[in-house]
């Protein structure tokens, strides 16, 4: 009899668990639909499409991939993007770390105000940033004209070629993204236990030693996270080089980055098969980065 009721109880428990799981799926369903529509399905669709000649709709295996890899514009585009990512990531790691550590030596209130000023440019994004930069790069109107005068750059053309696209886009990225990460590192720094810092102070560590030997190792994980996400984002650069053409035809660089090349194939040539192949190829690296990050840091586990 006890056995009977035990199995009954177990059955009821299982039933309840199933019901609860159903409710959970119901709560998740709007988001799952969106994820299916705008992440999973498009990737699968593009994957399938990348094996077809999309102009005559015939299967042609790896031809699209072969064509992309043989495109004479691909190597320069990869080279541009890699240079840009390298410069941008270095700027972020050095600049954000330095500013965060310096701000940590100030009182909380001062630091908060300065952080807000640093964060402000991060609020502008997309086309407005590029438009703003096209003004900033024009010695005629720019508030930084004295710098350009120093180098002898007299018009926008000479500023852009003087600085070079790589540095311009890296500066844009730094100005727009560093503020947010300074806030994040500020949070990580304030999370360091006070007694650790106090003990170091008593042992006679000066501010420089405190910063480099105690604080820096304790925030190195957050810095790595910043570097990795910056790389993932940087590899996909599109808007900045694309919009440089607003300043005139001589600035038009439709194949500067890899993402632009995909766009070029899709919309100027109507060849979506090759565009899909580029999309798939350029997804591989970010997804590997994401998975490594997730499993290495156990991102999904929260204490």
């Amino acid at each position, binding site marked *: 009899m006890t056995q009977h009721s035990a199995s009954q109880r177990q059955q009821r428990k299982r039933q309840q668990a199933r019901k609860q799981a159903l409710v*959970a799926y119901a709560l998740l369903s709007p988001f*799952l639909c969106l994820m299916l529509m705008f992440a999973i*399905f498009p990737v699968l669709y593009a994957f399938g499409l990348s094996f077809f000649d999309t102009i005559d709709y015939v299967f042609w295996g790896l031809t699209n991939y072969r064509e992309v890899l043989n495109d004479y514009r691909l190597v320069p585009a990869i080279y541009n993007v890699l240079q840009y990512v390298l410069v941008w990531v270095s700027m972020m790691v050095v600049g954000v770390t330095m500013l965060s550590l310096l701000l940590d030596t100030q009182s909380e209130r001062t630091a908060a105000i300065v952080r807000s000023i640093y964060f402000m440019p991060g609020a502008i994004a997309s086309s407005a940033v590029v438009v703003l930069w096209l003004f900033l790069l024009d010695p005629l109107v720019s*508030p930084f004209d004295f710098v350009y005068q120093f180098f002898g750059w007299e018009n926008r053309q000479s500023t852009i070629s003087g600085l070079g696209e790589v540095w311009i886009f890296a500066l844009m990225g730094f100005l727009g993204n560093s503020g947010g990460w300074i806030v994040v590192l500020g949070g990580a720094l304030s999370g360091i236990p006070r007694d650790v810092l106090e003990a170091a102070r008593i042992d006679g560590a000066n501010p420089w030693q405190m910063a480099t030997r105690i604080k820096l190792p304790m925030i190195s994980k*957050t810095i790595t996270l910043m570097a990795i996400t910056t790389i993932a984002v940087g590899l996909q650069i599109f808007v900045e080089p694309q919009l440089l053409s607003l300043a005139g035809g001589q600035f038009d660089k439709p194949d500067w980055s890899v993402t632009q090349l995909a766009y070029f194939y899709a919309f100027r040539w109507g060849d979506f098969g090759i565009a899909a192949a580029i999309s798939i190829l350029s997804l591989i690296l970010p997804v590997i980065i994401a*998975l490594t990050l997730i499993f290495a840091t156990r991102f999904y586990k929260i204490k």
Partner: protein
Amino acid sequence: MNQARKFRISHFVIWSILAFFIIVYGVPLLWLLLAGTRTESSLISDTPLSFGSFATMKETFLNLIRYNSGQVMTWALNSVIYTVGSVTLTLLACIPAGYALAMAEFRGRKLILILTLVAMITPSQAIILPIFLEMTFLGLTNTYTGLILASSFFPFGVYLAYIYYTTSLPKSVIESARVDGCGQLQCFIHMGLPMAKPLLALVAFFSFVNNWNNYFLAFILISDDSKQNLPVGLTTLISASGALNAQEAASNLPVGQPEAIQAAILVVLPIILVFLVSQKHVRSGLNAGAEKG
């Protein structure tokens, strides 16, 4: 005494660096806001950070409004529609999803969580072309619905909600409520939702910024001029008028650099205002986003 001097020097060095960067970060925005009040000739001949006049600002604004009989206002209205639609859908999708991932046990939970994180970290640009192909297939390009739906997918929002519920709603509370006969759905409605206010503000802010600034997706999905949003409209305005291009600037439109600047301000200002109001939330949200780092 020696130490005091050393302290003063290091203090001076630290503040010079911080101040230098305050200029680097602050001046571009300050310049933009001031430039909106100046005439074309003032932009070129006066010192960069000077103030023009309110009369000029008004005149420039009227010029901007008159462009293509009020197209800028249409774009602004479109931006509002896209943003309100997407933020609403984002909240409706993210909050319950984050709650379920944090509170319930079910099969596939970890897989969904990992997919969400991958989608969050992988930059969205790589996937925009495939989304365009799909939307063409569904006949949703050039529609409000299409862009609103596509920009409502916001995995970062789910992650924020997931962290929020995991850290601020103890599982034991939910479990004891469940023992008392409260079903999962009731628990969400009676406990999850009422405490979600700060979370709503947080997700709404980030989703608002994303959507208001949305350029690439709108650029790809919307080709009809009258359905564009402000960020795309801004570039249409500038390339049509040649406002930024000395050689083509001879167009007879009264749209020059001052108008382009004010159009850019129109894109930027709402974000700055909302940011100033919700700074504290933003900071806590950024920290939550990176806490696991």
